[in-house]
């Protein structure tokens, strides 16, 4: 029985979503992880090393910044959780530090990962360099083109970047290739999944590692305003790892609104979108049951978003559960709305956000909050990697 929105049941289900739909070839790897991850994470020696690396290496706690001009504009108190200030430029490193320590304790020597925008790839390459482990990152051919700076960073960090050439040549296909690699290398290889997707226990494990975000928000809000609970927390959702981390310690606090923002791409009805809850239905991809964009015949549809990190046809099972139960409010923002929000943040606050995070910021235009409300937006990553897209937008007269 599931007792909390936070955690799945023993079989990895959040309500009707989750599970471990994997071929037998993956069973030993996933089972080894399932049997060990909770004990490993709970081990004081693990926690000591993890917390120290979060603090001294990743740069945690990240600031919770009261954005004065943004607050003035939207007539409410807007706080930005500055995950963009983490080492490697996004929240992804919270998870890769955790998983590399798990991999080390399981005696794995070779690390594989998938990446969309490249943020998870960079975060994985970084911790592999830190631990001296071999690192192979699968990345869609199309994403390799549009995220060139991150590809260069991964290579400089010693990782091998393997282009995924099948299907839509984006994150979904990079994930397929990484899973195939894992099937072919069952003994020495650990798969560091970058979002709250995949077979159980990945969604739970990744959510736990990212939950440091909401843990810090509670402490920081208490210091700033005398209460741990904001009116709302807002985050973008592709697979949904920064959202899972931002929501985690508020999920069982009914007074806190949970807002998830998906990528609408060119618009929900344009067939150029990645808003899985709006356009998808329950289905199975990459090892778990969740919301999935698919044809009537059950073929996975190719998503689209200007942001490579949100260009994924599904969402994590925890989010699917939040959606169907109504615990979470799911919004979506188009490419243009995200671009507008990014330029607005740059001009008002002097912060250039990642395109993914810009989707979360766009929610401020879609929901009205009261003057005395305190609203936290997760600024999941910084926009350096997206400068080419931003330059194009400026060239187009933005």
């Amino acid at each position, binding site marked *: 029985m599931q007792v909390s929105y936070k955690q799945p049941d023993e079989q990895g289900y959040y309500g009707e979503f989750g599970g*471990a*739909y994997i071929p*037998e070839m993956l069973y030993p790897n996933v089972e080894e992880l399932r049997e060990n991850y909770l004990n490993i994470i709970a081990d004081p020696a693990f926690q000591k090393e993890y917390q120290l690396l979060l603090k001294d290496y990743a740069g945690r706690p990240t600031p919770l910044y009261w954005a004065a001009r943004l607050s003035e504009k939207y007539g409410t108190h807007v706080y930005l959780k500055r995950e963009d200030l983490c080492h490697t430029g996004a929240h992804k490193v919270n998870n890769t530090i955790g998983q590399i320590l798990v991999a080390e304790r399981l005696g794995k020597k070779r690390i594989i990962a998938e990446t969309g925008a490249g943020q998870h790839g960079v975060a994985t390459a970084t911790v592999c360099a830190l631990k001296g482990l071999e690192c192979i990152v699968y990345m869609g051919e199309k994403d390799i083109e549009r995220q060139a700076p991150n590809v260069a960073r991964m290579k400089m960090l010693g990782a091998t970047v393997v282009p995924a050439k099948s299907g839509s040549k984006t994150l979904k296909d990079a994930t397929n290739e990484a*899973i*195939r690699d894992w099937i072919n290398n069952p003994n020495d290889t650990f798969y560091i999944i970058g979002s709250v997707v995949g077979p159980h226990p990945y969604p739970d494990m990744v959510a736990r590692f990212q939950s440091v975000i909401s843990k810090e928000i509670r402490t920081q809000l208490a210091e700033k305003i005398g209460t741990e609970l904001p009116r709302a927390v807002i985050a973008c959702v592709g697979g949904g790892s920064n959202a899972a981390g931002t929501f985690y310690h508020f999920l069982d606090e009914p007074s806190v609104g949970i807002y998830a923002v998906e990528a609408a791409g060119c618009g929900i009805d344009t067939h150029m979108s990645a808003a899985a809850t709006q356009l998808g239905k329950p289905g199975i991809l990459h*090892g778990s049951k969740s919301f999935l964009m698919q044809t*009537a015949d059950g073929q996975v549809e190719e998503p689209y978003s200007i942001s490579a990190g949100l260009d994924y046809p599904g969402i994590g099972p925890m989010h699917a559960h939040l959606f169907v139960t109504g615990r979470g409010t799911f919004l979506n923002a188009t490419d243009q709305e995200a671009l507008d929000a990014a330029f607005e943040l740059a001009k008002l606050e002097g912060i250039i956000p990642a395109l993914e995070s810009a989707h979360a910021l766009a929610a401020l235009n879609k929901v009205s909050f009261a003057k005395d409300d305190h609203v936290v937006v997760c600024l999941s990553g910084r926009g350096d990697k997206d400068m080419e897209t931003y330059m194009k937008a400026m060239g187009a007269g933005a």
Partner: protein
Amino acid sequence: MSRLKDVFAKKEKNVLNVYCTAGFPQVNSTLPVMEALQESGADIIELGMPYSDPLADGEVIQNSSTIALQGGMTLSLLFEQLKPMRERIHVPVVLMGYMNPVLQYGFEKFCADAAAVGVDGLILPDLPPFEFETTYKTIVEQYGLSFIFLVTPETSEARVRKLDALSSGFLYAVSSSSTTGNEKEFSAVEQYLERLKNYGLNNPILVGFGIKDQDTFSRACNYANGAIIGSAYIKALEGQPDLAAATRHFIKKVLG
């Protein structure tokens, strides 16, 4: 006696199961390819239901699926194509594919339609035993279908026995931990097949993955009841104008 049981009752050794993708190489070539396989000596036909994201398969089968999907193959069309199957095909036919298309079609409707056209069994590699036992087993049984689980060299003895108990028709022994079409040294897996043989399981064992020619087929048959060929046959069909001739040529090379 069911067609699958019949095959193994008549033939303890050297059972040849050949995989083909429905709708490949042409959307309407499903039945002609199956006929060619039957005439060339295949004892069982494993018919792949094309899926956009076939995790357990390699590049060759994924590409064949992509071509089939681009040609317009769907599960509805497949069942339509298979309506006259039993007028022409007498060997057992096993459908292989992934859970998502089956779920969208409706699991029970899928089983009903498969049984109605004369399909004998199902292989759904991403449906794990827990979900099978708790949700789907009774439906599969209700329609008289066999369900075939995979085991690998990494599967423990206890789990092999559990998967054997849940399977009917045969047990699919993946020759090595890999996706289909992967070339690995075959001798490395002979010990594992010997181990499986010594368990004295309920189901006959067919070896799959890495079987591509007479040598690998006969070596697999030394330790099991037969073997499954997939990627190598799909490769043999690529770009061939005469599918029947290509099939005959390929199967002849395997059977010697």
